[in-house]
């Protein structure tokens, strides 16, 4: 039964790739069928597993592209401190790659990120600067930009404004998806900086016009809404809304529930944003008579274990779901 349901995708004797170093092992992530989560038998659902990157998230692609760009443009030197505002994954990736290249790395993170993210940042040698958790990522960005303005040693990688972020997805993520799934009709990814969505959308618009590009984003918890006015909102400079076809919000509760469903039904251990992306993919699938959806799952589940992402009943997680923990 297993053999008939799951034909082998890796041929016997196929040689696994060999790389010069860990930087070169970024990308080329697997795409797998997750049909048990599709609400319709005539809509195929596939997931691109970015957890397979070296530090465990899609942000390895971005971090490498940002550092490459800073080096190529001469904006970073031996005395620079590479700085980024991040809820974790970008910081972890920058810390690993930056340290290998001899840079000091400092990251501004909301103080409600999970313990694992903080531990990984420290393991890779990053200096961690806390921003108030109730201000969410917007607060981290504001603090990081303030630091850059006050101390010339800080060089902001700036995943929110640097076009190198979407460009790497246009050059790698998009082509990988189309090569593996040429029949793609819809692409769904999470919206944080907009890098994945912008880059993949630009590639698909050029290479396979008509593919719908759909964003999934979190509803900020009640405890992460410390803005004083709407003027403190933030739209990343790299985000171009015209490249999307639809955009949906997903609550942290629904995202976590779907993440658990993914683990239970497909055996894939992913982070909460993956649940949000798959929930939106399933919603889009319900509106299709047939077709193929590719959902990009940004990271694995390891960094969320301590917060009870998989073990604590959702009804007991109310404070954490409302922003006590930064899930994305």
């Amino acid at each position: 039964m297993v053999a008939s349901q799951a034909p082998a995708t890796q041929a016997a004797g196929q040689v696994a790739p060999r790389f010069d170093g860990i930087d070169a092992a970024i990308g080329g992530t697997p795409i797998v069928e997750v049909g048990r989560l599709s609400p319709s038998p005539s809509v195929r659902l596939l997931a691109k597993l970015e957890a397979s990157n070296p530090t465990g998230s899609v942000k390895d692609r971005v971090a490498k592209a940002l550092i490459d760009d800073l080096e190529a443009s001469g904006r970073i030197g031996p005395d620079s401190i590479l700085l980024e505002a991040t809820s974790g994954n970008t910081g972890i990736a920058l810390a690993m790659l930056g340290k290998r290249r001899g840079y000091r790395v400092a990251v501004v993170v909301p103080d409600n990120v999970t313990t694992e993210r903080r531990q990984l940042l420290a393991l890779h040698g990053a200096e961690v600067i806390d921003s108030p958790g109730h201000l969410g990522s917007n607060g981290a960005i504001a603090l990081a930009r303030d630091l850059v303005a006050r101390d010339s040693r800080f060089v902001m990688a700036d995943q929110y404004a640097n076009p190198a972020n979407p460009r790497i997805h246009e050059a790698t993520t998009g082509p990988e998806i189309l090569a593996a799934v040429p029949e793609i009709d819809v692409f769904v990814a999470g919206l944080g900086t907009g890098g994945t969505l912008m880059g993949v959308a630009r590639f698909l618009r050029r290479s396979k016009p008509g593919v719908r590009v759909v964003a999934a984003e979190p509803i900020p918890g009640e405890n992460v809404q410390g803005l004083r006015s709407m003027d403190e909102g933030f739209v990343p400079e790299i985000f171009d809304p015209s490249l999307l076809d639809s955009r949906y919000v997903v609550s942290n509760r629904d995202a976590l529930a779907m993440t658990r469903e993914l683990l239970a039904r497909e055996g894939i251990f992913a982070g909460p944003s993956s649940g949000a992306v798959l929930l939106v993919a399933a919603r889009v699938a319900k509106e299709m008579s047939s077709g193929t959806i590719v959902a990009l799952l940004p990271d694995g589940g390891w960094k969320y274990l301590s917060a009870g992402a998989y073990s604590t009943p959702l009804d007991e997680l109310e404070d954490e779901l409302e922003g006590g923990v930064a899930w994305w």
Partner: protein
Amino acid sequence: MSTVRLPAVLRAQADGQKAIDVAGGTIREVVAGVVERHPALASQLLGPDGDLHRFVNVYLNGQDVRYLAGLETPVGPTDEIRLLPAIAGG
């Protein structure tokens, strides 16, 4: 009447309410109904041109109305409308 969910940042100008029920056949009419009920919200929600403030996102049953028909998106009586400030991540 549809339910409009307000983010924390807007509640001080809406008597602390998290959600209000407002009548209206389109998003434009619903937003106008919200502002009529709580006039102090006008400058938070709308720009000088009468369109939505650039940092305000409006979702109809979870879907961004900018990708539907914008302010002219039809609203049904049991629909949920959510107003959220623009927030980044990563």
